[in-house]
């Protein structure tokens, strides 16, 4: 009794586990159960049961309710599909003037809006793209194809790559000085010389449209949320879901609404990039000391002046950190959008991966990584840049960078002009290095891959087999062996013990959604892969983090490494693992582990660092050894922050598992990928996306609640 009073939580957990295992053993696997047959949307089978809800017929394999819940939400994807179809094709038909046929035509409102939006976005993207690499589409937008064929001179010439490279270097110099200037210049030159100029500029133009638009909308919504509690409350769940929703999944409904291509990708990128902007705007505005707001009011600001002359400039840094986030999200979406045929580096990467041309994929991946680092460094430099006083400088000094760029433009044009005489064979290398004329290292890499295969194939294969047979398959079987009711009890019980009735209800709702969807088995597979990845990542991350923390320099170095790795779009991680392990679950898991180790390491170091120096000194003065200090002082205090790291690790792992479907897994991601190529995939894709997001949110809710309590308990927040 004494013990129970002293450790009530511990006993609650024990009790929960006992109930869970009792349920697991009590409920037998039904004889008819076979994995993958749980959901039968696509196969017709006389053994299936059916029901009709909201006019939709759902077919499924019926099991004991304790074993698997019936897919009561099975109608949801069908219903979403039909609703979307109805909205796009039948809802609110209106008369619209058709420019081509010169007459009024009846068309559903949403379809028309979607078409106009498409037209507008396409125009914007083409404009930027053709400023960078030249083309005719912008001119066509104002005239017509006939006019163009009569006037062959009429096209945007595009900028020689030298000018863009110089521009990047000058921008780097302005933002942070010589180092960044050099890096920016070198990256651009690398891209050009290795023949990746065109796809890189396509990707860049994509970001140049998507990022500013996301910024404007995000800032606006962030301000609205700051001003009104009601807006904030409405936005918050959306932000939460969007942050755990795999980027993959949102592509599917985008396809239905806007078709495929760059415009659809930009629009859906905005949907993904706006939530973090809202969040950071809100955080920045919240962090402003109340006295600054009062000072603004007492200076006689009206609401408008208060917002734009006081609040936003004061929150400048946080808002620019938001811009950094937006740019990075846009970039990773630019890569993933290749799935809906957005042009650029991602598309090349996807093609290369599809052909299993690891060399080409590596080249594209390297370019993507370099540009990601460059964009990240530049936007961070912008955020950290202090405003300087320049009233006492001369006009020339103040506009030195502008002059420099003007000079570079003239020089670049002159070079390109002379280049057109010098390079006779039709390619002006001072204007643009064509894709197939750049230096290619693909062969080298391919040979490397071949060599690795020749030399290590046996070992890799042995490791692969061992991992799959001895570890992964048993683990998967265990996960699938869980009766749905037992899982539900476990999750809800954990919610109750950690956060009381409120947490229990939230977690219960999220779990039920997945359990009642037709993809419970798939969700279990996703969870098993993520769990495996998270466990290994945490072990590696916590160990590496703790070791690096022992030395100031190694800690800073490790954080810098994490920074760099974190900027890479997740898709890039698939390249090296495919190179080494081919197309297996192992590849996916290794990518998951590599990717998810980043936050685990980072949060460990940050958490240990955040232990106040005074406590260090106090501990040292009471004569602790290094180990005692680590285990008695640093770990307990850093633990809440490390748990936040675990939270991030889970989200990262889930993302990667889903993307891993590209290599071939049997989980939710596979179905999302299927939905991408399915005409009626929107509903399925979206529902699957919610399932993945909810898995993330269950853990998010539990961990966050626990961390907040713990922090309150320790008096740190």
């Amino acid at each position, binding site marked *: 009794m004494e013990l129970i009073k002293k450790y009530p939580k511990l006993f609650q957990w024990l009790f929960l586990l006992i109930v869970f295992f009792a349920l697991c053993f009590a409920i037998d696997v039904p004889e008819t159960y076979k994995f993958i047959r749980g959901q039968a949307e696509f196969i017709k089978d006389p053994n299936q049961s059916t029901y009709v809800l909201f006019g939709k017929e759902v077919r499924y394999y019926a099991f004991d309710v304790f074993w698997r819940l019936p897919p009561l939400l099975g109608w949801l994807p069908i219903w979403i599909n039909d609703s979307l179809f109805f909205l796009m094709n039948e809802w609110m038909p209106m008369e619209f003037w058709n420019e081509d046929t010169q007459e009024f035509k009846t068309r559903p409102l949403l379809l028309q809006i979607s078409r106009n939006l498409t037209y507008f976005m396409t125009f914007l993207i083409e404009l930027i793209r053709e400023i960078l690499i030249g083309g005719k589409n912008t001119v066509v937008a104002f005239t017509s194809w006939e006019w163009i064929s009569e006037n062959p001179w009429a096209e945007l010439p595009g900028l020689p790559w030298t000018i863009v490279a110089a521009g990047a270097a000058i921008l780097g110099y302005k933002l942070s000085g010589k180092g960044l200037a050099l890096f920016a210049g070198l990256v651009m030159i690398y891209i050009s010389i290795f023949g990746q100029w065109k796809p890189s500029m396509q990707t860049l133009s994509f970001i140049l449209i998507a990022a500013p638009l996301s910024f404007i909308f995000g800032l606006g919504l962030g301000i609205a949320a700051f001003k009104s509690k009601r807006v904030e409350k409405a936005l918050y769940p959306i932000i939460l879901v969007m942050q755990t929703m795999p980027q993959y999944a949102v592509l599917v409904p985008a396809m239905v609404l806007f078709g495929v291509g760059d415009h659809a990708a930009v629009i859906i990128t905005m949907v993904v990039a706006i939530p973090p902007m809202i969040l950071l705007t809100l955080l920045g505005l919240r962090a402003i000391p109340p006295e*600054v707001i009062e000072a603004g009011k007492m200076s006689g600001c009206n609401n408008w002046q208060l917002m734009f002359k006081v609040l936003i400039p004061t929150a400048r840094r946080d808002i620019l950190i938001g811009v950094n986030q937006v740019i990075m999200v846009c970039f990773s979406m630019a890569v993933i959008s290749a799935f809906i045929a957005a042009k650029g580096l991602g598309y090349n990467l996807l093609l290369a991966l599809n052909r299993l041309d690891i060399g080409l994929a590596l080249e594209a991946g390297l370019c993507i990584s370099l540009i990601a680092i460059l964009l990240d460094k530049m936007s961070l430099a912008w955020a950290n840049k202090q405003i300087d*006083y320049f009233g006492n400088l001369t006009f020339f000094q103040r506009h030195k960078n502008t002059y420099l760029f003007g000079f570079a433009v003239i020089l670049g044009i002159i070079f390109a002009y002379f280049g057109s005489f010098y390079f006779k064979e039709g390619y002006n290398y001072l204007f643009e290095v064509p894709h197939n004329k750049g230096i290619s290292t693909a062969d080298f890499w391919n040979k490397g891959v071949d060599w690795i295969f020749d030399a290590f194939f046996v070992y890799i294969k042995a490791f692969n087999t061992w991992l799959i047979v001895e570890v992964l398959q048993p683990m998967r079987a265990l996960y699938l062996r869980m009766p749905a009711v037992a899982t539900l009890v476990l999750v809800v019980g954990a919610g109750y013990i950690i956060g009381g009735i409120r947490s229990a209800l939230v977690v219960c709702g999220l779990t039920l959604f997945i359990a009642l969807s037709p993809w419970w088995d798939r969700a279990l597979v996703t969870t098993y892969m993520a769990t495996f990845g998270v466990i290994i990542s945490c072990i590696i991350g916590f160990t590496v983090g703790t070791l690096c923390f022992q030395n100031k320099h190694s800690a800073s170095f490790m954080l810098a490494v994490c920074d760099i790795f974190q900027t890479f779009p997740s898709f890039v991680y698939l390249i090296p693992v495919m190179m080494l392990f081919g197309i297996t679950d192992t590849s996916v898991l290794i990518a998951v582990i590599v990717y998810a180790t980043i936050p685990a390491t980072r949060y460990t170091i940050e958490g240990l660092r955040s232990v106040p120096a005074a406590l260090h000194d106090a501990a040292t003065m009471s004569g602790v050894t290094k180990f005692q200090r680590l285990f008695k002082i640093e770990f307990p205090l850093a633990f809440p922050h490390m748990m936040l790291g675990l939270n991030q690790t889970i989200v990262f792992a889930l993302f990667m598992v889903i993307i891993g479907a590209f290599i071939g897994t049997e989980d939710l991601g596979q179905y999302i990928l299927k939905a991408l190529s399915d005409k009626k995939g929107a509903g399925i894709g979206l529902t699957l996306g919610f399932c993945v997001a909810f898995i993330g949110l269950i853990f998010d809710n539990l961990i966050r609640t626990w961390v907040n309590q713990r922090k309150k308990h320790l008096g740190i927040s």
Partner: protein
Amino acid sequence: MSEPVIKCESVYKIFGENSKKMLEEANGNVDAKTFQEKGCIVGVNNASFEVSKGEMLVVMGLSGSGKSTLLRCISRLTDATGGKIFIEGQDLLQLNNKELIDLRRNKMGMVFQSFALLPHKTVVENIAFPLQIKGIKTEDSISKAMDMVKLVGLDGRENYFPRELSGGQQQRVGIARSLAVEPDIWFLDEPFSALDPLIRKEMQDEFLRLQEKLQKTIMFITHDFDEALKLADRIAIMKDGIIEQLDTPANIVLNPATEYVRKFTEEVPREKVLLIEDVMDAATSDNLSDLKVSKDEIIENVAEKILTQEKTVVVIDNNNKIVGSINPSKIINTVFGGRKNSN
């Protein structure tokens, strides 16, 4: 006397839901404890006072006493829950947003504890900010702001950013900004609390110099009793939202109204606070010494002279007219005796 510049009539500020309704039900009898049980926190409890033109009222209280809340009610940074506030006869709580902004742009200036400067503007731009908000042309506002820079002694640093200044210098900017629109009413919310003791003293002297020159109507918030004594024309001492006593520094020291006020006065060196006037007796004719002291002298400054006399000293006013007398024993009593008496 003309109309008071600031006039408060039973001002209440209560935080929490339904505070308005609860205040009405309480019928003027607000008890902090019963309110707290119902989830409301009483910030200001029945504050009534007036501040006349050119006067400096210092509101003194410990943290959580409601002094800042009171100031924010009068500047209407928060809306008072009950009561009336008049600024130069205008009912503050009846003003609409536009009128309020007008009032702030022309009549009010405020200095903040944490300086509250705009990090993206230089010293001179910060000072010119209220002017530019009013719509004054950039050049005019900058030249006016430059005058203010000189007034607070920051010449040569006008193009610095706040991050490049020390705390004392930052607060000078805050002061200059609050004065830029030449307000009649000047609010200072613990302006020197965030500064080091030496800098604080320097800023207090500077502040007194400015006030001598400008003669603003001032509400000054502080938690430092010595600061209050040094600066105030009158002091209001607050506790739990209630003004315990509102009087001149001398009267507060001599006649603390409540036990709470008395605790503050205990440690005060009286000879530094009180004037001869405050302790003198009625004029008498017998046994006088030749020494004459002015009634406006601080005791500390003349104590030695008086104590070397054996007889009663004559007290005179500015026109050399005899207004009272003071016996050396009275000085000794005042300086050393007072504390025991009140025990």
